Every structure is written in structure tokens, then in C-alpha cells.
């Protein structure tokens, strides 16, 4: 989903770039408010973690595989603004250090994966969480559904941008992208919920958006995780 240079026209590049810059700018502003000096290395660690997690492919069907996106996971672990910032950092390093995703398409890539796939879907997740019973399994289910939505919506935005730029026909590209990512999204959902359930069991303090009452986590010696 990393759009290269030359696939988008000027209008789409500028519009998505402006939207992405606005949201990331607000994220940086929030980061300054929320973070102390210690958080800079830890936030960067979060970005490096998402980068490394994206390298672990998961099987989809008959030997084909998809890879993890991590937007929803970052948002649930860090909150929407810091999560979006972390995804932006990942995309920037991929663009400059690995030529993955174009310079002029950076705005669109950040818009799809950080703004839509992380910040916007976080608020959908929060809506889901509000209507579901306040218990851990429902929290995990909401996060999983949010992860599915994040992948599907980001791929849909990608298809719409390509179509608006005249690079691919919407009537074919949109169903194709949505169809493929509806399946890949199931893997994203399962993995996001699993990762959160493990982290909640071992270090519940690291899930910043977990606000449910009730018995705290089973005390597990944190040495186990080393």
C-alpha cells in the first residue's frame, strides 16, 4: 500500500499532503504536551517496533501471506495522536531509508495509513467500545474490529486516490482492493487482539487506552517476557 511517486496527480498529492500535515502537526503538538524527555526514545522505539512487526508476514490462504500494518495496535497502545505520529515516522523512514513509498506520495501514504488507518479508526474503535459491555473480551473484540476497519478503510482510500489521479479505474480497483484487504484485515484483527491480550496479561500499564475497571492483570513476573 506504499504508493510510489508518479501514481498520483498534483491535486491528490497536495490535498492528501495538507490533510496529513495538519493531523501530524496536531499529533506533534499533543506529543509535546503529553510527553516528557523520556518519551522521545520510547516513542521512537514504538516506531521501530511497528517497522519490525511489519516484516513478520502472516499466512492468509494456501501459502499466500499478508503483512501486519499495526495502525490500530499503535493507537490502542499509545493513544490516537501518538499512534498516528509513530506510523508517520515508520512511513518516513521507509520512504527515505528504503525507497519504499514515494516522496511526493508521502502525504497520501501518511493520510491513508496514519490518518485513516490509525487516528480515524481509533475513534471508530472508541465508539464501538462505548456501546459494548465494559469487559476485557469486548475491549479486545472492539480492537480487533477496529484493526479490520483500519486495513480496509486505508486500502479503500488508496484505491480512491489512484482512481482520482486517473491511474486505475475506480469500478475495478476499489472492489479489488477492498476484497483483498477484507481478507488480510482478518489477520490484522486476530493479531491485534492477540497482541493486546498478551500485553494486558503481562504489562497492562503499557496499554495506554485501556480504561476498564475490574480485576487487574494476573501478576506475571516480567522476567518471563525477557
Amino acid at each position: 500500500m506504499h504508493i510510489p511517486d508518479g501514481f498520483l496527480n498534483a491535486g491528490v498529492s497536495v490535498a492528501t499532503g495538507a490533510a496529513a500535515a495538519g493531523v501530524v502537526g496536531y499529533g506533534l503538538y499533543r506529543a509535546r504536551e503529553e510527553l516528557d524527555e523520556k518519551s522521545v526514545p520510547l516513542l521512537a522505539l514504538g516506531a521501530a517496533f511497528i517497522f519490525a512487526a511489519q516484516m513478520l508476514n502472516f499466512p492468509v490462504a494456501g501459502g499466500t501471506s499478508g503483512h501486519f500494518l499495526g495502525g490500530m495496535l499503535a493507537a490502542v497502545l499509545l493513544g490516537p495522536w501518538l499512534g498516528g505520529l509513530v506510523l508517520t515516522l515508520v512511513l518516513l523512514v521507509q520512504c527515505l531509508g528504503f525507497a519504499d513509498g514515494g516522496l511526493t506520495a508521502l502525504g497520501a501514504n501518511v493520510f491513508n495509513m496514519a490518518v485513516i488507518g490509525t487516528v480515524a479508526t481509533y475513534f471508530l474503535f472508541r465508539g464501538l467500545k462505548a456501546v459494548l459491555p465494559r469487559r476485557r473480551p469486548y475491549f479486545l473484540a472492539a480492537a480487533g474490529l477496529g484493526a479490520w476497519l483500519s486495513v480496509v478503510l486505508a486500502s479503500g482510500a488508496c484505491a480512491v486516490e489512484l482512481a482520482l489521479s486517473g491511474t486505475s479505474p475506480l469500478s475495478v480497483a476499489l472492489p479489488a482492493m477492498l476484497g483483498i484487504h477484507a481478507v488480510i484485515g482478518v489477520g490484522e484483527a486476530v493479531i491485534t487482539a492477540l497482541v493486546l491480550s498478551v500485553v494486558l496479561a503481562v504489562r497492562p500499564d503499557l496499554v495506554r487506552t485501556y480504561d476498564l475497571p475490574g480485576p487487574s492483570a494476573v501478576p506475571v513476573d516480567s522476567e518471563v517476557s525477557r
Partner: protein
Amino acid sequence: MKHAFLDRYSHLESPVHRLDPRAKLVGFATLVVVCVTTPPRLYAAFVAYLGLEAALIVLSRLPWKHVLKRLLVVLPFIMVVAAFIPFFSKGGGSYNLGPVRISGHGLLILWNVAAKSTVSVLAVIILSSTTPFSDLLGAMEKMRVPRLFTSLLSFTYRYIFVLVDEAQRMRRARDSRGWSGKWLWQAKVVGHMIAALFLRSYERGERVYAAMLARGYGGGGVRTFYAYELGILEAGFAALVALFPLAARLLS
């Protein structure tokens, strides 16, 4: 461990490597913007862009194998666009390729995307392969990118190699135990791996931060020695890389 990072050849000796990264950043960014906004029918302009890049690759002594290998990242996207070509039916005459009818309009779209993405990816490859990442960040800092942002990027880049190594070790350990996931319901294993990766990297981060404090880290990012100065060579380089494509485009 194997890493596909681009700045592997950034410590070679060449005139391009010695330039101030600010000049390269401005020059290549302009080249990409000029290329992306070029109308696709100006074929001569694209030949000029590629010629300039080929000359820079020769001048910077980058191995062609490295450049071509990294160039492959755009191929899947071009192939996806190629797959959609038959669905564009309007205009430009049509060609029959067996059962598939391809319109001239569709072919132009494919050429547009393939040419522009190739030129642009080559520009980023030359930039990143001739400039250590920390110097690229130093240049951004000198160009007034917020320090919070550059220090976040520099820490991210440092940690990536540690965590990618960790992820690769986990993957090797898993594969050596005979795991072969084929279907979605086997994704559970990957979920547990990512959870372990997160917990390990977080706790490692805490230890690294304590070690940094013990060594006198006082915030404000990593300071690196920025051993470049803007001079006549830099001005000439930026002018060449930015203005040559512009001239080629206007003349063709």
C-alpha cells in the same frame, strides 16, 4: 543479519558522497517534483532525467547491482496498474493482444506511471545511498525541521536494526521448529511473536534509556558531527540536478 537498508554504500568515496546533504536533498526533491509533473508525452524529457541519474550513479561509484535491486520495489505497483489497463477502454486507438484489447490511452497511463516512478525511486536511491542517514537528518535540522521530529527519526532509525534483528531471530527460531503457516487460522503464532517482540523491545528500551542517562544523555536528540559546508560545488550540484531536468522538460 541481513538488512536491506539503503545507506549501506553511503561511506564510499566519491564527489557525490562528499557534497553537503542539503544540496542533495534540495536537488533530488526538485528533480522528483519536476519529473512527476511532466506530461507523459514528453518522452525526451524522461530520457534526459534517466541520463542525468545514470551519470550520477557512475560518478558516485554505486554498484549497479545494488541500484537495480532496490529499483525492484516499484515493480509490484507497476504490475498492478498494468493489470488494470484492459479496463480503460476510451480513446487513443486500440491494439489486440490475443484475447485482450488494450487502448492507447491505457498504454499511456502505464508508461506515465512506470517512467515517473522509476525516475523518482532512482533519485531517492542515489540520495540515500550517497548520504548516511544521520547526515540526512543533520541536513534537515539545518533546514529548520523541528528538532523533536528529527530526534524521533534518528532514534527510530537506530532502533530499527536492533528490532529487525530480534524479529529475524524469532522468525528463524520458529521456522527451525518446523512451523509452516499456510492458512489464516495459523496466524495466532505470528500474533504471539509480535506480542513478545513488543514486550521485549519495550523493556529493552527502558534499559537502553537508563544506560543513555548513565552516559550523560540530557535530551534534545543525538548530536552528530556535521562535517559539511555549503560551497560552490554544492551550488553547482543543486543547480545541475534541479535546473537540467527543468530545461530538458521545457525544451522537449
